């Protein structure tokens, strides 16, 4: 059974005027279907307003689809008796680290989720320690979140989700407000959780460099999933991505442009090493 099974969902935001009458509705998701298997690392790309956040909120039952069904571990999210169980299964990390923290001390912040779930005290303390160790923030257990850097706050937010022992973490642009160092730290934690604890990760991002290590990429546009495939497959369609107003990693772009100029390079080169190797092979072939 796939951990996430999305079947033909649509979602409309309704705008209301002062009297509560509906003035217009925006279709934010339009017939989206996809499946994610347990343990996958998924990246979701798409420019502003393409419906990424709306999609993410469906995985956590923060929104339920207007049409179609979302199954999380087989549970229908629109059934309110499943809501808590869905939220335990799929945790969510948001963009702004300050706006998702409830407590004034790091360990209490991490313990908030388990407290809500009714986990016994001893077990909460253990989970909090484990979660803080996992994200490498144990030393800050007693600090105030206000004094931490953005990257550290975001790792605390991840720990807060981890302490709920989810099978899946949905992160909605968790690195958007961070500096490069904080960004790298957060990504490292997400990849580590994926590899070592087999947590399914759905990473929503604008940053192309962050997605090349994903197992699969979904590209969204106008509320639809328009591309779906491995990073190599996705990034071999540079033209298509540019049409969707998305960047590609620098090396990929360079390789693409060289190919346009006639150099017989392979499509979908993702890393510098790959690129260098490819050029070497090419050079050898010439000699």
């Amino acid at each position, binding site marked *: 059974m796939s951990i996430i099974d999305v079947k033909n969902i649509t979602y409309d935001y309704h705008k209301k005027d002062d009297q509560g009458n509906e003035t217009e509705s925006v279709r934010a998701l339009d017939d989206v279907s996809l499946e994610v298997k347990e343990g996958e690392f998924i990246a979701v790309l798409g420019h502003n307003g393409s419906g990424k956040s709306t999609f993410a*909120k469906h995985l*956590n039952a*923060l929104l339920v689809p207007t049409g179609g069904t979302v199954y999380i571990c087989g549970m229908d999210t629109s059934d309110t008796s499943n809501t*808590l169980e869905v*939220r*335990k299964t799929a*945790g*969510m990390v*948001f963009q*702004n680290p*300050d*706006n*998702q*923290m*409830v*407590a*004034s*001390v790091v*360990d*209490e912040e991490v*313990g*908030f*989720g*388990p*407290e*809500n*779930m*009714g*986990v*016994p*005290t001893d077990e*909460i*303390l253990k989970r*909090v320690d484990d979660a803080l160790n996992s994200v490498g923030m144990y030393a800050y257990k007693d600090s105030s979140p*206000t004094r931490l850097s953005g990257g550290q706050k975001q790792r605390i937010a991840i720990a*807060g*989700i981890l302490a*709920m022992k989810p099978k899946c973490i949905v992160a909605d642009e968790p690195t958007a407000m961070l500096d490069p160092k904080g960004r790298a730290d957060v990504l490292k934690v997400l990849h580590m959780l994926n590899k070592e604890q087999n947590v399914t990760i759905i990473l929503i991002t604008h940053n192309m460099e962050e997605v090349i290590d994903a197992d699969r990429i979904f590209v969204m546009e106008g509320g639809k999933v328009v591309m779906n495939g491995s990073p190599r497959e996705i990034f071999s369609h540079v033209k298509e991505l540019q049409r969707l107003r998305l960047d590609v990693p620098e090396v990929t772009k360079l390789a693409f442009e060289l190919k346009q100029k006639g150099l017989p390079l392979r499509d979908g080169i993702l890393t510098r090493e790959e690129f260098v190797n490819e050029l070497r092979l090419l050079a050898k072939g010439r000699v």
Partner: protein
Amino acid sequence: MFKDITLGQFYPADSVIHRLDPRVKLLGTVVYIASLFIGKTFFTFIPISVFLVMVIILSKVPVSFILRGIKPIIPLLIISAAFNLILTPGDSVIVRFWIITINWEGVFMAIFIILRLLYLVAGTSLLTLTTTPTRLTDGMEKGLRFLTPLKVPVHEIAMMMSIALRFIPILTEEADKIKKAQLARGADFESGNLMKRVRAMIPLLVPLFVSAFRRAGDLAMAMEARCYNGAEGRTKMKPLFYAGRDFIAYGVIFGYLAVVIVMRVFGL
């Protein structure tokens, strides 16, 4: 200007007062405030001072920290002292000019009010200085739980308070940022009369409120995503338990209250 707000500030130290159960400290604060209003003469300030000084010494909080909390209320002190000075009725007139009479009763009341407010702020600030916001709200929640059957939303109030305290540093920082941004666009917060200055605050408060509402929306969603569902079925990571020292403290608090009441009864 926003840096002076010490409300809810915590001074970390390892002291008996810090370790006391928050419910004890809450009751102690209530009793202390009550004692300030029970006392009608300068004599009552003797037990009150003893109590306050004892707590300050035990708490290991530097006096300068407590005094810092007094700075912002100086205007309030001056205004209430002035009103009492002028408006207290009495016969022992000292000076009289135009429509204003100043008498000894007024002088007495003015000094009394200043003392009362100073002691009030100093004493209550000790509560937040020695108690983390979470322990404080935990204490409130558990200490006031007897009100839940009366449909008082104790848990919700406690949660609101702890979130408010958590966001004070974030919002003060933001207020400073907005202020600088508006200053850079030529806004003027310093000059002009009172009306003008109050009006100058509008371009500061509007963005601050807008952002506070956005943050509130984000936070509500984040809490919901983490299975928050009100008090029902919720466990505590750090539950409160009374220790021996808490019972001793209760004894001291009630002893103190008794002394103040007895003094009042005997007209001291």
